[in-house]
């Protein structure tokens, strides 16, 4: 009996003690990553160009490279990163529970996700928009002509909500087919199960390459939504969000100033801002809680934004579009390194 009472009271005590203790843990993810010596990064499981498992069994793509860039900045080694493939449903939970340190998985910056979901966004790495792909043979030019069509879409994302919103506002009747994974969606589209498929244009372009006859399909010249895609960190961890944000800015900055993977080690300059960027002067690294030469490490590891883009997205046929430095009329604008 005494033993029993002792056990019960111990359990109650343990519960009441442990729960608030653990909940009040305010260690920054940045310190956690440093202590662990490894970054855990959530990516897409199978999106060519952005995040996918290559033939060699290594995670590759645009998003994966940004994960490597962060690892290079924090730990000085782009290989000290572990990728966790996540589906649309579990990605936010994984971030919020701390299973992953940063989520770089084609995630659109929206108000609810920013304010309501306890997540913080870093600057978008890719500005996208939702579009439609249809077979050329249907001879369709606008959304209105899709009346009565069956449209394929992936579930659990903003894509299907945008589709329903747009069609309702235009008063167009259509039949949706909601797939849970994109491979079945595009195979279904290729087989003619659906008349059109809607998604982020980057995905449409990437996936068009996989179709049997890519030239038989066109991407309509309409964009029904804004899709700024960027990395996410957990809400309230400013230190970590700053680090991730400035890694992204570093890739923008390097492209603006023509610093590349090749020339970064021997980059000669008198420009004080570039000197601060390269860690040759100033305290930029210390302020961010990163090593002195963090930005240099990023560029050594993955190159500037343009190089990351060319390595991953140019081969799948994506044009730079608005994803160009502001100096060339694009939207990529690095905040000053001062």
């Amino acid at each position, binding site marked *: 009996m005494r033993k029993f009472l002792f056990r019960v009271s111990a359990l109650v005590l343990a519960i009441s003690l442990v729960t608030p203790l653990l909940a009040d843990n305010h260690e920054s993810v940045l310190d956690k990553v440093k202590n662990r010596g490894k970054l855990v990064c959530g990516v897409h499981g199978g999106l060519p160009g952005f995040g996918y498992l290559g033939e060699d069994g290594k995670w590759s793509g645009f998003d994966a490279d940004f994960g490597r860039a962060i690892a290079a900045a924090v730990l000085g080694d782009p290989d000290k990163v572990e990728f966790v493939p996540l589906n649309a449903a579990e990605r936010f939970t994984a971030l919020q529970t701390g299973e992953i340190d940063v989520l770089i998985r084609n995630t659109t910056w929206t108000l609810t996700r920013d304010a309501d979901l306890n997540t913080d966004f870093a600057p978008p790495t890719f500005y996208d928009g939702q579009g439609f792909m249809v077979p050329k043979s249907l001879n369709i030019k606008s959304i209105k002509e899709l009346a009565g069509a*069956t449209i394929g879409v992936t579930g659990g994302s903003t894509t299907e909500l945008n*589709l*329903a919103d747009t069609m309702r506002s235009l008063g167009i009747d259509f039949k949706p087919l909601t797939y849970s994974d994109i491979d*079945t969606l595009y195979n*279904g589209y290729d*087989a003619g199960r659906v008349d059109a498929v809607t998604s982020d244009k980057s995905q449409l372009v990437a996936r068009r390459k996989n179709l049997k006859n890519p030239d038989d399909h066109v991407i309509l010249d309409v964009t029904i939504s804004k899709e700024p895609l960027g990395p996410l960190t957990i809400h309230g961890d400013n230190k970590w969000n700053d680090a991730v944000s400035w890694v992204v800015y570093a890739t923008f900055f390097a492209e603006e100033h023509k610093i590349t993977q090749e020339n970064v080690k021997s980059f000669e300059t008198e420009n004080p801002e570039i000197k601060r960027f390269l860690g040759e002067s100033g305290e930029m690294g210390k302020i961010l809680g990163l090593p002195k030469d963090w930005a240099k490490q990023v560029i050594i590891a993955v190159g500037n934004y343009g190089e990351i883009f060319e390595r991953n997205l140019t081969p799948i046929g994506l044009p730079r579009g608005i994803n160009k430095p502001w100096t060339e009329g694009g939207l990529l604008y690095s905040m000053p390194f001062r």
Partner: protein
Amino acid sequence: MQQDSTKIPFWRDIRVLKVLFQVIFIIGIILLALFFYMNMLNGLERQGIELSLDFLMSEAGFELSEGIDFDSSDTNLKAFWVGVVNTLRVSIIGIFCATIVGFLFGIARLSSNWLISKTAAVYVEIFRNTPLVLQILFWYPLILTLPKVRESINFFDSIFINRRGVYLPSAVPADGFNTWRWYLLSGIIIAIIVVLGLAAYRYFFQDRELHETDRPSFVSNIILGAKWVAAPIFLTAAIVGWFLTPEVSFVLSKPELQGFNFVGGINFSPEFTAMLIGLTVYTSAFIAEVVRAGIQSVVKGQREAARSVGLKESQVLRLVVIPQAIPVIVPPLTSQYLNLAKNSSLGTFIAYTDLYAIAEIINGKTDQSVPIFAIIMASYLILSLTTSAFMNWYNRRITRFGSSS
């Protein structure tokens, strides 16, 4: 004796200990549940999620094409209902098909024809030993290789098969339907009254003369009545009503090509068809084994005896083998039916919007994962428990008949 036990201190009294042990156990379970509950509240708070069921009544925002009518302005609750209906639809039709195919292959495995029995054996082993998901993922693209919409396989201009699905003509209620259904309703009411009356009369007057053990139950009287009395009354009412109604009650709706797709008639989508084929083939392989074991459980002597009294082969099967095999077959068959219903949740792999797929969609946009999980668990539990209750009832019925014969 009585005095001895009172002397034992209560902490050594087995009866007290038993109660105490259970109390500790229950408290432990409650504490564990409490622990998880507190964690959950904490975790949800950290994620900024407020637990509520309001999302059920809010606008869904997405569209669904499979199953009953649904629009993006309908509620999430209705979306769940669409999922339930889709799950039930594929499960019930699947159970029906799998039973037929399974019995065929089970009997084929016992055929004296070497080719037939070996083919059946290979069929069973192949489909039993590969995962169902894989099979469904294989059938679905295969169905999508059917002809395009404009090149549909066409039967008499009324049945069309293409990669968008199977289109059948259907009967749609017309003007006269409202009148006609009153005849149907009155037919049903009359049938119920007559059957109840007859059953009561037999039970309280005629059967009294029989010995207690031979006396049929009230329920079996009703079943007998339903078969021989109610059905004819109902049919007569339906036919008489049909001719007495001035307008036509039903019109035939034929599928017709309009724009991108066929319109009208009944449509089985490729997703539904792939699920149905997958569930049927996979489950039928298991049912075939169940049936084979059932038939083999009937000892050889029974068959020989039946033949020796001059029964024909078909009679031996129908009168001797099957009645004895069925009680052996039904319990494992029940668990196969339950498996089929549960396996219908794999629709999410190929865009068949069953209950689980809908839950996944809603979870993706509301983040109320806890109540959503509770809802799908509860729905599947109700489905499973109803099925097993029904099959248990059926099993009791046939085993009772089996033992009395």
